[in-house]
């Protein structure tokens, strides 16, 4: 009996300790105060408030294919890649929700490939995960210890305070893609129901914040096809959104022999140049954005570009 | 028994075989040394040591090794 009592006391005290620590680790500063620092996870949070013109939401296709630095250099428009490898649409929605707190882009591109990615885990797994994240927020915020512990360390240890790539990954490797007829006609593949629900949430968030939402399918030989194009077109029609598929008839003239890093799945730097040019031009022609290359408030972008250019060698 | 101690001393002279009780566990006799030991025992005492008997319990002290040899001689 004494042991049962001891165990219960142990758990109770543990609970209290967790609550106390959680309190200390909950994000206190509002996200807006972050300033220009490099944060490893939500990189976009490191950007100055309201400085991003357009955001591209997607997966590895986006961070391999769209280089915001190229767009900045040629058009003076600020773009950020909000993309993670094998990103699920539920994650995209959460990331966007978080980003919109400090940024108010006028336009968002959404990568169609994400619409078709289904998670391997059953829904109950996510419910369970969400549950314990809600009741034990410490599991979400525990990494904040980095903000509060050892803060006396010289901050010059933080190499590159400026985020240079803005979400892009610079890869020069080249492996030719061979399946040139990957867009031959086939039956429509509908976007999975669960993903449609999340897309609806993203759409609503855009409406609420006055953001123009554009659907886009970037060049992708391995997992894109005509059926998915038709499914995405349907979705675009339903929400009355513009949809650009860059796979049909290869409008960007991608040379799959030299411009892919992994036999057609992703573009490499060479391919990214073409895609980024297209995005930049498209953004310019919307007339929603100004060329800020001479704007002193955006000096850090010019600085970043210089470092970026160095890294291209 | 003296012959056994002789053999052991030749293989690894730095050990006090009269008193040491963890020849195997203390790595005074490693696997290759045990091989040499078995080879010498088999030659000198005319027994065959089956592999199931090659366990730390049988080789951890000179006394235990001797007990094993005696047991095998009787079979």
């Amino acid at each position: 009996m004494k042991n049962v009592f001891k165990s219960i006391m142990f758990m109770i005290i543990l609970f209290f300790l967790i609550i106390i620590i959680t309190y200390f680790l909950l994000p206190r500063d509002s996200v807006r105060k972050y300033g220009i620092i490099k944060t490893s996870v939500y990189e976009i949070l490191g950007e100055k408030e309201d400085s991003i013109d357009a955001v591209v939401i997607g997966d590895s296709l986006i961070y391999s294919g769209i280089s915001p630095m190229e767009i900045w250099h040629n058009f003076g428009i600020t773009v950020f890649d909000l993309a993670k490898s094998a990103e699920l649409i539920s994650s995209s929605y959460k990331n966007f929700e978080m980003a919109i707190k400090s940024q108010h882009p006028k336009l968002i591109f959404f990568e169609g490939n994400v619409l078709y990615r289904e998670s391997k885990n059953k829904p109950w797994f996510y419910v369970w995960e969400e549950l314990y994240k809600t009741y034990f927020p410490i599991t979400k915020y525990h990494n904040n210890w980095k903000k509060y512990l050892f803060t006396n360390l010289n901050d010059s240890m933080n190499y590159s305070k400026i985020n240079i790539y803005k979400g892009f990954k610079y890869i020069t490797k080249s492996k030719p893609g061979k399946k040139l007829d990957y867009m031959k006609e086939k039956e429509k593949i509908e976007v999975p129901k669960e993903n449609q629900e999340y897309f609806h949430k993203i759409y609503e968030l855009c409406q609420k914040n006055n953001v123009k939402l554009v659907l886009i399918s970037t060049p992708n030989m391995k997992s894109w096809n005509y059926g998915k194009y038709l499914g995405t077109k349907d979705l675009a029609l339903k929400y009355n959104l513009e949809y650009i598929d860059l796979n049909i008839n290869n409008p960007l003239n991608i040379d799959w022999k030299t411009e892919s890093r992994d036999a057609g799945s992703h573009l490499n730097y060479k391919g990214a140049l073409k895609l980024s040019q297209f995005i930049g031009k498209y953004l310019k022609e919307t007339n929603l954005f100004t060329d800020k290359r001479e704007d002193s408030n955006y000096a850090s972008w010019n600085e970043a570009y210089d470092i970026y250019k160095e890294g291209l060698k | 028994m003296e012959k056994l101690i002789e053999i052991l001393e030749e293989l690894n002279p730095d050990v006090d075989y009269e008193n040491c009780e963890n020849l195997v566990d203390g790595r005074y006799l490693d696997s290759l040394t045990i091989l040499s030991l078995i080879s010498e025992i088999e030659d000198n005492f005319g027994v065959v040591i089956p592999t199931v008997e090659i366990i730390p319990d049988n080789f951890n002290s000179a006394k235990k090794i001797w007990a094993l040899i005696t047991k095998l001689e009787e079979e």
Partner: protein
Amino acid sequence: MSYFDVIYFLAFLPGVIIIYNLLPKKIKPFILLLASFAFFFTYSKWLIIFILLSSLSIYLAGLTMQKIDSEKKEAIKDLEIDEKKIIKAKYLNKKKIVLIITALFNVAFLFYFKYLGFFKGIINSILKLFNINGSLKIIHHLAPIGISFYTLSAISYLIDVYHEKYECENNYFKILLYLVFFPTLVEGPITRYNEVRDTLFAGNKTTYKSFCFGYQRILYGLFKKIVIADRLNIFVKIIFTDYMHFSGPIIFLGAIFYTILLYMEFSGTMDIVIGSAEIFGIIIPENFKQPFFSKNISEFWSRWHITLGLWFKDYIFYPVSLSKGVKKITSKIKELFGPRTSSLFMGAIALFAVWSLNGLWHGAGYQFLFFGYYHFILILLGNIFEPLIIKICHKLKINRENILYKLMRIIKTCLLIFIGELFFRANNLTSGIEMMKRIITNFTFKGFNHSVLTLGLDIKDYIIITLSLIFILVISILKEKNIEVRESLSKKHIVIRWACYYALILSIIVFGAYGEGYVPVEPIYADF
């Protein structure tokens, strides 16, 4: 369900503990069996049929071999010595056939699931070499979880019963539990039937002490993996994928980090596994004994993955080195070159067999074979040169017991281990060789500081890693001195005790490398 999932240690395990303790003694082992089935199911679903077949095969083989033995005893009862010998041999042959067929049956499954593809690949290469058209299609099979481990346990039971080391088991469910027991299923330790059966089937109750000690050990394992291994993985993953972009020292650092990661993950798993079993009063053998305190490679392998080493020692090394064929050759060598050379030779052949198998056991790939032979050569050279080194130390009046000398040997051993693990982790043998080349040819510290701090880990991560490793080191030194840490801790004042436990738990929750931005380590030994 991984041992490191919250759902394992906060839901599954407590659930099993409760049900186990509510039911009577005789039923308790069945609860473990059911729990193990459920656990297996979360990994490999219907592939459970294979472990059922394996366990059934060794169960029947055991009974058969025992029957053959009793028939033999009947048959030789009143015979003369000469006749006895002939009849004995006949029955021994029968037993041997049962042993070989059953062993092959089990190994065949292992081969099919893990090595068929590799083997087909080799055939394809040979065909290409001879310009023969056509190649074998390689299909990827998902293997039943733990097959590399339980197959070895199964074979150990077979061989032990064959040698009449102990009597065969009459109860099939005991054999089944022996193989499928959920703590040892995924990554071992590789248990011997006679060593676990006393506690495994005893139906011991969970005591307050066994519960506390078990969970303390589980916490320690969680700490190792979630705070250290998962954190180091961020860096390691990048180095091993993109090695072409990094300088020699960075790549070497990657090898060091990987070795530490591997040890934390594997030994951490063992902590959870042994701790879990302890709660049910079941004693599982240790698999690690402070391996990085080893003074040479031989010693390393007696401290790292101990049960695997013991398995190879008992079932490959001694049988091969003391087999008739090898004995014949060695006696000739003994005549010609003396006893030392002959036993070295015996040992070398047996070691070669062991390391070929050990390498392959770790994976179906050339880099694993290379890994095996790398250690084979190191051990062999170590043994060949040992007398020479002892002589040199004598002449130079170096005291081998000197702590500095010992430290030097430990460092040398660690360096050799880091190199071995680099090849083990590399994507393939070619990458491994490339990485090694870069370490030697591109050994510049230019940009080292920059790389170290921009590959996913910042200075604060390194502080955590360092502090954690110091903690582990202290515990390891205590264990090396045979101090039972949990025992001594339990004797301290309750405030101190609880402070330590809270510190450990909260460290895992706060400093754990999980959540956004961190990708966990896929259990390295669990693709087995």
